[in-house]
């Protein structure tokens, strides 16, 4: 029986250790936990946390998560205060379910042509135009998000829809070897990975950006509405830091994306190589955080068609976005 007792004791201790909460070291500084996915489209969040929040005495903790659903769910439950994710079904459904999730600012925008990547080995031979992708495998990093909409939009240019291709879900980094090996013939790939693929001679981006094209809003930042209401000052500080970070990147007509001081931070969080990031096509952020809401209806329409939405009446932009914090921050900093 002695063996039993010691086994039980050990088990109990392990359980206690595992479940006991870690001691709170910095109980002083206010904590803001921010969820992110490791791509450089989230650069605004990295820069905001490192350059503007932490020095201001705010304990900004960046928490890496696999996808938008996880980030949205954790912001909704308050496990995280803030997060970024692709505009898509998870966010829309959360808002429709009256979860305390409010979108507060655009995170990045981009051009379809910068994302649409095709395997070099097939481009020009088996795949001469977009329509030739019919029935082929195309990579997406998640379902129900803006990238799916981008793929659908790209396909529609040549008479196809997303239902005409076979979608394979994989994280962005994995798309490069997948394009190389032929596991997929095309993908909606986010920087710096399409540049990496091009450098390796593995893929091409065959679409030309038409003159006067408008960038598409792809990701947005959101936070827990209850937290923001209960910590109005803190939320304001965070938003101001956010705007500053945006302006760092938007500086000089977008050259901020290739500035060393910013690239350093991007390398830290995405573990991509410096040279690749510096060569990558810049994302788009607006220094006044203008939000293009015209695509929201179209996005909801696609999501509804694919059966991702749990509501039927589309949400209007003002139900999804709460831009009062943005407005106040811009007021404080002045327009650019």
């Amino acid at each position, binding site marked *: *029986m002695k*063996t039993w007792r010691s086994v*039980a004791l*050990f*088990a*109990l201790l*392990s*359980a206690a250790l*595992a*479940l006991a909460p870690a001691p709170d070291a910095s109980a002083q500084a206010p904590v803001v936990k921010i969820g992110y996915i490791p791509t450089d489209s989230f650069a605004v969040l990295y820069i905001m946390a490192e350059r503007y929040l932490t020095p201001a005495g705010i304990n900004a903790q960046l928490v*890496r*998560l*696999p996808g938008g659903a*996880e980030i949205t*769910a*954790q912001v909704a*439950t308050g*496990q*995280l205060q803030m997060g970024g994710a692709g505009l898509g079904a998870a966010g829309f459904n959360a808002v429709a379910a009256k979860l305390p999730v409010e979108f507060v600012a655009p995170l990045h925008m981009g051009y379809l042509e910068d994302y649409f990547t095709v395997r070099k080995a097939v481009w020009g031979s088996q795949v001469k135009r977009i329509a030739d992708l019919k029935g082929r495998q195309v990579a997406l990093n998640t379902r129900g998000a803006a990238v799916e909409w981008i793929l659908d939009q790209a396909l529609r240019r040549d008479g196809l829809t997303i239902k005409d291709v076979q979608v394979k879900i*994989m*994280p962005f*980094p*994995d798309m490069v*070897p*997948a394009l190389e*090996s032929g596991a997929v013939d095309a993908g909606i790939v986010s920087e710096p990975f399409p540049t990496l693929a091009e450098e390796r001679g593995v893929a091409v981006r065959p679409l030309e950006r038409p003159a006067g094209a408008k960038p598409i809003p792809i990701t947005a930042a959101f936070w827990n509405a209850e937290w923001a209401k209960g910590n109005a000052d803190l939320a304001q500080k965070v938003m101001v830091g956010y705007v500053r970070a945006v302006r760092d990147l938007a500086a000089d007509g977008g050259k901020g994306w290739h500035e060393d001081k910013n690239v350093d931070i991007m390398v830290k969080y995405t573990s991509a190589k410096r040279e690749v990031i510096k060569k990558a096509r810049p994302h788009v952020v607006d220094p006044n955080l203008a939000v293009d809401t015209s695509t929201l209806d179209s996005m909801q329409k696609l999501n509804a068609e694919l059966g991702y939405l749990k509501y039927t009446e589309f949400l209007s932009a003002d139900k999804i976005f709460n831009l009062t914090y943005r407005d106040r921050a811009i007021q404080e900093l002045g327009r650019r």
Partner: protein
Amino acid sequence: MALAATRRVPLGLLVPAALLALWELCARTAVLSPRYFPPPTAIGAVLVERLASGDLGGELLVTLTRMMLGFAVAAVLAVPLGLLMGMVRPVRDAVEPYVAFIFPVPKIALLPFLLILLGVGEPAFVLTGATSAFFQIVISTMGGVQAIDPRLLEVGRNYGAHGARLFRKVILPAALPSIFTGLRLGLGLALVAIVAVEFIAAKSGLGHLVYRHWQMLSTPEMYAAFALVGALGLALTRGLSALQDRVLAWQEDTGSL
């Protein structure tokens, strides 16, 4: 699985060795694509290198820790519960519906719900492993108590043992083989569940390593991690069977089911 130990070791090693040799040959002559099936020597080299550098060891430790924690949580809760359910009818009636309902469910299906409750992180992973082990241990323990020959209990009572004494001297020892079997199976299930969770949702651990290297098509690393999981599983199975034989030496056949 307590399969008969054989004295004729050579044959038992011959077949795996022959298979590996065949694989090596096919990979080197490109009968098998070396990209998808790298020669075992290459895999072995990567395995040794990564173990030496500590990378693999680190991931192994992560998986092992999750498994042990999950198992510990499960065992600590499941054994007492199983005993209680076996001995006290109302408890069994109240709890059995849940056990019967959840037991056949693939515990991996619980993952999204745990992610909602606990967020993406260690607690969710460990708990998935714990639930896999928990139900097996409860069922085995309860079964062990229920299978006790009623005459044993009668004899015990006739000799003046009641309540706690009866439990310690008669019930617990009689149920011990089943409890142990349950624990053994539960640990195995915990490992399977943890590795599956790592494959799907974690950013560390042996299961995740296999997934990541699969996605990147760095196959030697993938097979190395795979081999390590196999070794871990084998060590556990054999080790626990041996332990069971030791601790319950009075039993003739410790059985596998």
